[in-house]
């Protein structure tokens, strides 16, 4: 069972885990993810591979607590194990030398954008980064992003750090200033990705978003993760998770994400009552 070798808290309810998974680390590329099942009774949930250290044989996962399954993962410490970890899954991001690129990460989305920014830099692209959070204490991985980008703009919704506003405000400025942007990659909450795609559409700039529908197996056998892109149904786990932001049906994605809202509440409530003594 994969062992957690190091754990840090990045922000309230956001945990950074370094996990021993040598076979996965050997193959992982930016844009790919793993499916994690914490214990016998847990759900399988998708998490992006934020870093892969091939020599050490470890991968880094960054998890934000939003419900039952992520809450259980955020509680883990070094020395704990994860029952099942499957990966790498999904198509790797296509990263080539194209010139100037923009990487936008919102909230927890900063974690998955980081490996992409780093790879863009490695292949010789000029990387402009934009990261944002609701408030200062929720901003994550700023140092790492700064090191990976030529220039980094930071926003907070409440103005407690960096410039006040949304990542899209900063992007609008960049789009106006910069001449030759080859691509924009945006990862974060669905409304943010949608807003980014709307901003870049008039400029005709290639815009890539990483979709996060509800998944079960992560290997193309259930269709839970289906999304509509350019009018066609795609399975995000095997055809994505990255797609052309200008062609994604974001409204459908948001609706499908809310499929189990009622059950999610029940799961959290049941956990609160301690009806599930997982480690007993």
């Amino acid at each position, binding site marked *: 069972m994969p062992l957690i070798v190091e754990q840090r808290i990045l922000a309230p309810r956001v945990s950074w885990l370094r996990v021993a998974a040598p*076979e*996965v680390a050997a*193959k992982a590329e930016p844009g790919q993810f793993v499916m994690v*099942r914490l214990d016998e*009774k*847990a*759900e*399988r949930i998708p998490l992006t591979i934020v870093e892969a250290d091939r020599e050490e044989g470890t991968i880094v996962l960054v998890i934000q607590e939003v419900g*039952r*399954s992520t809450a259980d993962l955020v509680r883990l410490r070094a020395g704990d194990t994860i*029952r*099942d*970890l*499957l*990966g*790498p*899954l999904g198509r790797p991001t296509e990263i080539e030398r194209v010139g100037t690129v923009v990487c936008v990460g919102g909230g927890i989305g900063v974690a998955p954008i980081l490996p992409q920014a780093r790879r863009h830099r490695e292949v010789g692209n000029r990387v402009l980064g934009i990261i944002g959070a609701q408030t200062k204490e929720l901003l994550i991985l700023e140092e790492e992003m700064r090191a990976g980008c030529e220039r980094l703009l930071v926003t907070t919704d409440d103005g407690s750090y960096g410039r006040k506003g949304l990542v899209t405000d900063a992007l609008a400025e960049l789009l106006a200033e910069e001449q030759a942007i080859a691509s924009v990659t945006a990862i974060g909450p669905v409304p943010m990705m949608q807003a980014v795609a709307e901003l870049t559409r008039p400029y005709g700039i290639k815009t890539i978003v990483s979709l996060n529908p509800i998944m*079960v*197996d992560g*290997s*193309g*056998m*259930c*269709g*839970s993760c*289906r999304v*509509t892109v350019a009018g066609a*149904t795609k399975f995000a786990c*095997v055809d994505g998770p990255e797609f052309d932001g200008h062609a994604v049906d974001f409204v*459908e994605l948001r*609706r*499908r994400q*809310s*499929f*189990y809202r*009622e*059950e*999610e509440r*029940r*799961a959290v409530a*049941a*956990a609160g009552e301690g*009806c*599930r003594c997982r480690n007993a």
Partner: protein
Amino acid sequence: MPERVSMPKQPVEARRRNFDEVAQGLTAAQAAAEARRCLQCKNRPCTTGCPVEVDIPGFVRLVAAGDPIAAARLIKEKNALPAICGRVCPQETQCEAACVLGKKGKPLAIGYLERYAADCERAATREGPAVSARPDGPQVAVIGSGPAGLTCAADLARGGCRVTIFEILHAPGGVLRYGIPEFRLPKAIVDEEIRYVESLGVEIKLNAGIGQLYSLPELFSLGYEAVFIGTGAGLPHFLGIPGENLNGVYSANEFLTRTNLMKAYLFPEYGTPIKVGRRGAVVGAGNVAMDAARTALRLGAEEVTIVYRRSRAEMPARAEEIENAEEEGVRFRLLTNPVRVLGEDGWVTGLECLRMELGAPDASGRRRPVPVPGSEFVVPAETVVVAIGQGPNPVLTRGVQGLALNDRGYIIADAETGATSLPRVYAGGDIVTGSATVIAAMGAGKKAARAILRELKR
């Protein structure tokens, strides 16, 4: 001549709402009496009807003589998974279709007897088989732990190979694990049969997706001398009609995986949810559709309707499961074709359908259903499950150079040996034939194991 025995079942009212096994198994007296009906035919027509050639009169004679354990051992010489096959094989089109007794009356209940023998053997304390894999035997990789992969691995281990099964999910068994429900095939039995395969020395590596973790060519550089591909037909087909992505529409694979593999019927004790409305509609009429419909009932749906575009005679499900579904109150809307999923605020409210009538025979010889113009009507439903078949999952085959596929994406393999277009790469089961049966997949695994052993001896 005494009557064919009937299977004791859980009463309908109770079983509609629980996940316990429906068929309860024969008693010793019932099994012995049924076994005595066998004529012990010299030319064994029943055995020709069995894809893996189980010695049917032989094991039936042992059951009649009161030695079901010896019977089970005899079956296991040909079939490593008798407790499973006794429960899920379409006997009515295989061994029992060929049984001489069927000419005048009802055929021998071969499936019930196979199950009885296997269950007796499982209940008896069993000393594990001696490990057959030799420590210096050649290494063989098997991809996928469904019936094809498990059977191939067991036979290879018996032949002295060191076998590793690579399985992408977190539990082995393929469709036996994630597809066929607990009430038809208890998972404890699947576990037991898999333990038997492991006891032969087979190693099962879970959470290992080939095509991602290792490519096919990489397996050879890891030291495997041959590879068997048994990855099944796991990619769900959708209808391609408007409204299919509304909340409340599931593929049968998702619906059954949530329930069986993830145990969503025990939510929230188990973390994976499932949502079933008051009314369910299931499109299709194969085993998968019957399983989905009966699962929906057990998850609390009050009304479940099977929607199928052909007529009763063409329904591909096992006769016994159609009967069980009917007894449990599943409704059948035959000669009915869905044209649109209706919704409100993003949630399913029903299926708009057209009535069909049978026209001229098509290429398969079956009369082709043709729509009756203007016959639109609505089957109201809050949950819709699409069970119209599966295709090959491209994860493994994507990016493999030189592996010949047919126009539907299935692997082209020799029917007798499982040999593919690549040297030392064999394939069998649903990934070659498309969705078929457990026993056909096992038969393919067996043939490939034989061919691999031959090849490795050279």
